[in-house]
């Protein structure tokens, strides 16, 4: 038993608590937040290599034997996501320095970001479905703080709706957990994976599986439960939006991937086909939104929904290529969404608006920004050799090998729409007649551009060096496809 897997959860928790003691010392706040994000990243990298070398890491809290205590399980999949999350939070903290404003920094902005990191890392690591609920509430509470942070009119207006939707989905989560407990008598994920195949009455379990899909679907923004997302995400300032877009929906996606591969496999013909159909509808709904709006934020926000659909389609195929592709694409999407929001944020600051129609001609004055954005946009659409390509390729391959080959065709077709929606921003904002821009200090511009460029560089490396990451990804997919590996690791402790 090694406690290493608890560090990415505990470090930000302790640091956030310490940060709350001196809200007015901004330099200290920045420094401590940066250091804690960095230390969390290092701890999670250690964890990743530990898992890669020694296999799945398990801690059962209080040293109770497995189904009785709360298990924390770190397999390659969750370790990879924890690393990606910590990396993104590090960049968001860097990007926040020039953009978030002193007023917000003085009112517990960094503690809220670190609490969010605690919740997300916890949700990725936990091996108990009720504990997942608790960690989801931790991250939601932090996200409530962040979405309303600053208290602008627009934010207050949207945060009410965001709160309401999430409270309803949390209540449904508790109800779904209650029903699952009454049928199986356990909430430990590994124990569920043992007990569920023994239950003969699969009808009730199918209902529970669909109820969980609804619960996680609210968080992951799948069709038709994504309605709250575009307006809510539009309200907060850019670094918070990047954080939300990169991390929050992905927790829902992770929960669906975990539950639908580990134990809700009793009626694959129904549940996974439903998942595939919903995934495709999600992609189509996202495409409509991505083309319909002339607002740079909205366009990228709808791209979040498209990506959720693509990832879930890969999982629903339940074959090696599909699941590997989903994992690759999930990691790619977390990074590229954060990078795109960063870049679009700079564009919005330069023009003083997020309306595309009022933009133009940035290529002459800010060429580096333009080329960086173009690389990120191509990465989003999955143009080889950039980071979207290997994941999408595997997902499409998985679709053709699996039962829903038509889904792969839709994904191929919609890739063009994704490219169009991202390049449209490039055409409108960077080409054309120059429009009058807001004055921007060189130092502030560089402070925003450097973290964005670094993150884009990381995604490019992730795409070009996909072969390097494949052992990790295939190891992660192996555990997802063979629940027995997960079960053995948990009960061995």
């Amino acid at each position, binding site marked *: 038993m090694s406690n290493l897997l608890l560090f990415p959860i505990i470090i930000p928790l302790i640091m956030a608590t310490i940060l709350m003691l001196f809200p007015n010392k901004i330099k200290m706040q920045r420094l401590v937040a940066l250091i804690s994000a960095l230390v969390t990243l290092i701890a999670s990298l250690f964890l990743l290599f530990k898992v890669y070398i020694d296999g799945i890491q398990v801690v059962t809290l209080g040293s109770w034997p497995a189904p009785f205590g709360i298990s924390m399980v770190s397999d390659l999949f969750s370790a990879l996501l924890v690393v990606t999350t910590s990396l993104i939070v590090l960049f968001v903290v860097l990007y926040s320095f020039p953009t978030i404003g002193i007023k917000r920094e003085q009112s517990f902005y960094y503690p809220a970001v670190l609490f969010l990191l605690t919740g997300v890392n916890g949700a990725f690591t936990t091996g108990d479905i009720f504990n997942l609920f608790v960690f989801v509430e931790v991250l939601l509470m932090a996200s409530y703080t962040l979405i309303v942070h600053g208290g602008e009119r627009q934010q207050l*207006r949207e945060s009410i*709706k965001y709160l309401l939707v999430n409270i309803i989905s949390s*209540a*449904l989560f508790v109800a779904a957990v209650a029903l699952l407990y009454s049928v199986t008598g356990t909430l430990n994920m590994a124990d569920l994976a043992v007990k569920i195949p023994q239950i003969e009455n699969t009808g009730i379990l199918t209902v529970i599986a669909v109820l969980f899909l609804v619960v996680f679907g609210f968080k992951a923004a799948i069709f038709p439960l994504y309605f709250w997302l575009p307006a809510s995400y539009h309200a907060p300032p850019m670094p918070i939006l990047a954080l939300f877009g990169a991390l929050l929906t992905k927790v829902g996606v992770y929960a669906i991937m975990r539950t639908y591969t580990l134990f809700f496999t009793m009626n694959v013909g129904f549940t996974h086909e439903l998942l595939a159909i919903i995934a495709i509808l999600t992609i189509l709904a996202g495409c409509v939104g991505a083309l319909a709006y002339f607002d740079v934020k909205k366009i990228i926000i709808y791209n979040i929904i498209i990506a959720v659909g693509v990832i879930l389609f890969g999982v629903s195929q339940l074959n090696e290529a599909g699941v590997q592709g989903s994992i690759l694409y999930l990691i790619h999407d977390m990074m590229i969404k954060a990078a795109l929001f960063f870049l679009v944020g700079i564009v919005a600051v330069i023009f003083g608006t997020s309306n595309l129609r009022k933009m133009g001609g940035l290529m002459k004055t800010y060429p580096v920004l333009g080329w960086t954005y173009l690389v990120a946009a191509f990465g989003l659409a999955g143009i080889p050799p950039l980071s979207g390509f290997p994941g999408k390729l595997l997902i499409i391959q998985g679709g053709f090998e699996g039962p829903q080959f038509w889904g792969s065709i839709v994904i191929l077709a919609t890739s063009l729409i994704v490219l169009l929606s991202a390049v449209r921003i490039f055409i409108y904002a960077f080409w054309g007649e120059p429009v009058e821009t807001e004055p921007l200090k060189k130092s502030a511009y560089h402070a925003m551009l450097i973290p964005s460029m670094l993150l884009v560089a990381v995604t490019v490396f992730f795409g070009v060096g996909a072969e390097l990451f494949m052992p990790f990804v295939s190891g992660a997919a192996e555990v997802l496809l063979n629940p027995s590996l997960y079960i053995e690791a948990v009960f061995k402790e």
Partner: protein
Amino acid sequence: MEIIMSVVIGFLFMAAVYLMLSKSLIRIIIGTGLLSHGAHLLLLTMGGLGGEAPPVVADGVSVSDYADPLPQALILTAIVISFAVTSFFLVVAYRAYQELGTDNMELLKGTEDHE
């Protein structure tokens, strides 16, 4: 007993949905409170209401005599969380009322620039 509890839970969910569909923000918040009460009672009921003896090992008490302790632990956690979220929601609602000058959800439809 489980039947009565199921009816109560159903009634709570119904009342919650009714309240949440109204226009006034404060009614919606009360609705979310009722919704989480319903969910918590469901958790308790689904754990089984039987069992008179406390869950402590003692002579002459078999496993089937115990009350199931797990749902109680889960409910405690869920209650604390919903308490915190509800109080936060009330604060946000009050701030929103101060800032926007209304608690009528009909007027808060859509986004600011699409009015």
